[in-house]
């Protein structure tokens, strides 16, 4: 086969490798063909027909997203006929879409809305159906509304392809086709893991997180409440996108200022809780490694993963770390240590987590709280919800001065920071475990083998003379493969990091929604993760166990890692699998 295929697009010669699609080739001459359903490498079904182009000699228009180039092909991407075709297809889609744009969560960040504007659609001339909302909000983390669904099937593709969960998919046929769970059940009734990946790929407002900003506004306005907020590691490298900053911009300083302007009484860094997780989980790992298991130890930070394990791989539950996630550790400490230290009644401390994640909304309701009857965390907001609060408050985010987290819980290591990317927990743990085991930090603190956005990364290290095999995987389809290989004995690991969402938390279901056209050709997760690793590299403090805050916490309150006190506050006690 020839190495390149030569064709002409809009009369411009292009040379591309065989197998390239017309859509990909068009990008090379600077033409982005619009799409609605196309997800590169994930869902290439040619269904929406927005990307049609004219290929000389073809009987009909063809879908450029799936049409392979051929030698001598002549393509036109925006003839009047093509523009008219796209416009009419859009008109048809709009005739079956509930257009309540002004009151839609996705207003101004909607792919359909943008297409309608780009194509100047001012009326839909075709008969239209009465559009009643079809709200389905049984799941704690999201709201579905099929009256806004355009049947691009991106949601079901990520659910099946990326997450191997597949709880939603196309049902019925023809005009009655709709996205549904089996037997029309509600999402709250089926084995959904709450990852929210479907939300981040939905082009419209058919899938949105269940918005809980009102609860936070109320708490902030309640004089009795002492409202503290903890921000997960990845938020600082994604929040800027909501305010028009480039992907990967680190806005930690402005973010802290904004939170303070919103009126939070304490603005804290969950990276510190991540450091604490390393202390506890590292201790747990060494204990299992030397005390006979069970191994592999699997991380427990990602509630989507924990829920997946409970529902699909319960046999691995004994392998999952007993540590709470950093969010829950943070909340537990706020309602115990912090409340005590600052003379606050635990019930008056209102804890808000800013999370990259919709499963965190589910995690905070699992029970197993440090103070009886009080949830460790009261509300978990996504990055998107926080950005809406900031906008609503009129805060001029981009021009805010930089400021630092409150000292009471604001000092953290670079190890805690990289929790936001896949492999980060593993690397942070390896830094501390090998330092403590060998009595000195390793020559290099960069464990590059477990970095990067590959779905599964494997490495082995020597700790106390023993070879330790580790794996870091993200995306539940990858997790499934790894667990399957452990199960059938084809692979052996001592320590596995599993993150529910592809790329880890930087790719979380609560992160800013970017158009698929951007995601198809640029790796957002890698750009976001790079910002985390860069900050880590620049930090003087890169080892969790060297954090002065961690030392202080153990000294003043938790005694030592793995102590009974630490277990009471920082570890789960309910049997996994029995949670709500």
């Amino acid at each position, binding site marked *: 086969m020839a190495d390149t295929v030569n064709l002409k697009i809009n009369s411009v010669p292009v040379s591309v490798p065989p197998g390239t699609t017309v859509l990909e080739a068009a990008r090379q001459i600077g033409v982005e063909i619009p799409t609605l359903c196309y997800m590169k490498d994930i869902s290439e079904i040619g269904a929406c027909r927005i990307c049609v182009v004219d290929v000389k000699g073809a009987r009909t228009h063809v879908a450029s997203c799936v049409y392979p180039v051929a030698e001598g092909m002549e393509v036109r991407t925006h003839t009047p006929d093509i523009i008219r075709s796209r416009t009419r297809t859009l008109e048809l889609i709009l005739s079956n879409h509930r257009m309540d744009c002004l009151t839609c969560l996705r207003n101004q960040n909607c792919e359909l809305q943008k297409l309608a504007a780009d194509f100047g659609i001012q009326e839909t001339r075709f008969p239209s159906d009465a559009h009643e909302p079809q709200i389905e909000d049984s799941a704690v983390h999201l709201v579905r509304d099929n009256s806004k669904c355009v049947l691009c099937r991106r949601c079901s593709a990520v659910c099946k392809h990326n997450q191997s969960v597949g709880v939603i998919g196309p049902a019925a046929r*023809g005009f009655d086709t709709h996205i549904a769970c089996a037997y029309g059940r509600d999402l709250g009734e089926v084995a959904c893991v709450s990852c929210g990946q479907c939300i981040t790929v939905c082009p419209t407002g058919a899938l949105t997180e269940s918005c809980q900003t009102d609860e936070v506004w109320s708490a902030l306005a309640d004089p009795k409440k002492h409202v503290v907020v903890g921000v997960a590691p990845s938020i600082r490298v994604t929040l800027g996108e909501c305010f028009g900053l480039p992907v990967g911009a680190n806005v930690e300083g402005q973010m802290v200022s904004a939170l303070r302007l919103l009126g939070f009484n304490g603005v804290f860094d969950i990276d510190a809780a991540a450091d604490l997780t390393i202390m506890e989980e590292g201790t747990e790992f060494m204990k299992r490694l030397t005390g006979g298991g069970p191994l592999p130890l699997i991380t427990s930070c990602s509630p989507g993963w924990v829920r997946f394990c409970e529902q699909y791989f319960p046999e691995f539950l004994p392998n999952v770390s007993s540590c709470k996630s950093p969010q829950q550790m943070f909340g537990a400490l706020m309602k115990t240590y912090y409340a005590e230290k600052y003379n606050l009644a635990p019930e008056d401390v209102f804890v808000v987590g800013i999370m990259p994640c919709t499963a965190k909304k589910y995690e905070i309701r699992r029970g197993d709280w440090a103070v009886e009857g009080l949830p460790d965390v009261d509300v978990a907001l996504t990055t998107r919800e926080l950005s809406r609060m900031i906008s609503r408050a009129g805060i001029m985010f981009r021009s805010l001065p930089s400021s630092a987290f409150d000292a009471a819980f604001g000092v953290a290591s670079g190890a805690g920071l990289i929790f936001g990317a896949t492999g980060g927990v593993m690397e942070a743990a390896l830094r501390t475990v090998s330092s403590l085991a060998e009595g000195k930090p390793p020559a290099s603190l960069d464990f590059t083998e477990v970095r990067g956005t590959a779905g599964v990364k494997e490495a082995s290290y020597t700790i106390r003379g023993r070879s330790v095999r580790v794996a870091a995987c993200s995306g539940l389809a990858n997790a499934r493969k790894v667990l399957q290989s452990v199960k059938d004995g084809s692979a052996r690991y001592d320590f596995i990091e599993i993150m529910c969402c592809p790329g880890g938390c930087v790719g979380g279901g609560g992160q800013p929604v970017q158009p698929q056209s951007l995601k198809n050709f640029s790796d957002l997760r890698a750009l976001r993760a790079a910002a985390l690793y860069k900050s880590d590299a620049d930090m003087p403090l890169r080892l969790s166990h060297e954090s002065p805050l961690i030392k202080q916490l153990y000294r003043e309150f938790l005694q030592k890692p793995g102590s009974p006190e630490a277990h009471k506050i920082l570890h789960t006690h309910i049997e996994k699998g029995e949670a709500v």
Partner: protein
Amino acid sequence: MKTPAELAARREAAKAKLSPPDRPRVLVGMATCGLAAGAGPVYDTLKEELGDAVILTGCVGVCRFEPLVEVIMPGKPKVTYVSMTPEKAKRVVAEHIKGGAPVAEYEIGEDGEAFFAGQFRVALRNCGVINPEDIDEYIAADGYEALAGALSGRSPADIISTVLNSGLRGRGGAGFPTGRKWQFAKDAPGDEKYIVCNADEGDPGAFMDRSVLEGDPHSVLEAMALAGYAVGSSQGYIYVRAEYPTAVARLNTAIAQAKELRLLGQSIMGSSFSFDLEIRLGAGAFVCGEETALLTSIEGNRGEPRPRPPFPAVKGLFGKPTLLNNVETYANIPWLLTKGADALNSVGTATSKGTKVFALGGKITGTGLVEVPMGTTLREVIEVIGGGCPGGKRFKAAQTGGPSGGCIPASHIDTPIDYESLSAIGSMMGSGGLIVMDEDNCMVDIAKYFLDFTVDESCGKCSPCRIGTKRLYQLLEKITHGRGTERDLELLEELCGHLQQNSLCALGQTAPNPVLSTLRHFRDEYVAHVRDKKCPAHVCKSLVSYSIIPSACKGCTLCARVCPAGAITGAPKEPHVINSQECIKCGACFDKCKFSAIVKE
């Protein structure tokens, strides 16, 4: 069957079965339509009287005369009896078979003879002639000879070039040259290839494939084995509608018999060639007739089409090169490979070779199945073979190609039937449904009927077809309800063009054809609906009104009694009146009035 020679010997022995020298051969048509008309009891009665001389057979084609019985006395010409009952059968046994005197009053008349006169049977050659449940009868009719020839040294290249030179084109609709398809599949790289038979005949009003499967299943099996030999495949699938239980049962019987005789399965006729077949049942989705949807369905998914390329010949079933033809196409293969390319090539027109089977239905006297040479005119099929419209009604249009085809008006009745001529007038060959309409059919209503069908049968994957077919239907509904405007006609045309150009698969691309062809040939009817608010054929209820002619009304009160809406009033023996406000236009009064006093306009 260990060698081709053994097959030849068996054929000689079997031939006596087809024309027994010493006893009658009595055939009972037992395809679906025969069975539906009551062939079962007729068969049982004859069997009781005559035993093994009675043979069940497939559809001979004249549906309106079912149940059909054919009696062949040794040395005598065949006598065909029509509309048989057990009682009539007894009389035939007594007078004809035992007494030697045919029962003239039950015989098929001139109409029936005209029905067969213009036909040329290739695909249907064995239907109604042999017993489809007896492999020996197929063997006797030169069955498996082509396969034996192939395994005796005929090369795959020779087989493909014979198919190519015969000029055979796909009989499922689009008319792609069959030989080229075979060549593509042969040339596609890959060790594993599949042969697939599309027997998902979903076109409403078509039953050609069903008749072949019920009347001559072995011809399809043999053709698929030949295809396997030619392109290098050892596994075939037949995707057949579950709504065809008789066809499925006969296919299963045929496959079992062929395997037993080693005409299918491992090392066929002792050669190194193996070919196995599996039946997969459809589950009620018209779109699965589209080749990629059919493959997706066999793979165990929603039957949704996928974009081409890649074409099935390169990447088809389970991602492997796949050759896919329909039943009628396969049924041609053993015949043409035995008789030679010229046998088929010499029949038909310059570009359309051979014959085509049509299922004649609708407003036609001779409902049934016919096979005519390509190039035969519609007039010949409808007026001569089919006997025209019943009841002296005026022929208005013929619909070919089902939901993908179009309506051909009376003015084009002299169009020759071939792929190019039919598409030139806005219809298509299609799989072979041919529905006749007379002056009582409203063409807007017919277009709406087909769109109702496509809305229901669209897979829902691509937006133009999923939403567009529904919008087309809604526009037609608006028009037939008298709410349409002339702007709606423009919108209709615009949307039709959009679907043709932008839908993912052939279903969506051809869905507008019934609308476009009726708009083209019967625009005045559309205009009457939108401008004058009249339905010229008096079909669209909203546009019809009923009234009573006072001078003709005898006051019998019957209409008032049958009116479900209580809209008719009047004293006995006095002229009645219909209250148009309350009338629901059901037409019950019109049907019941004995004095033609009610008018519909």
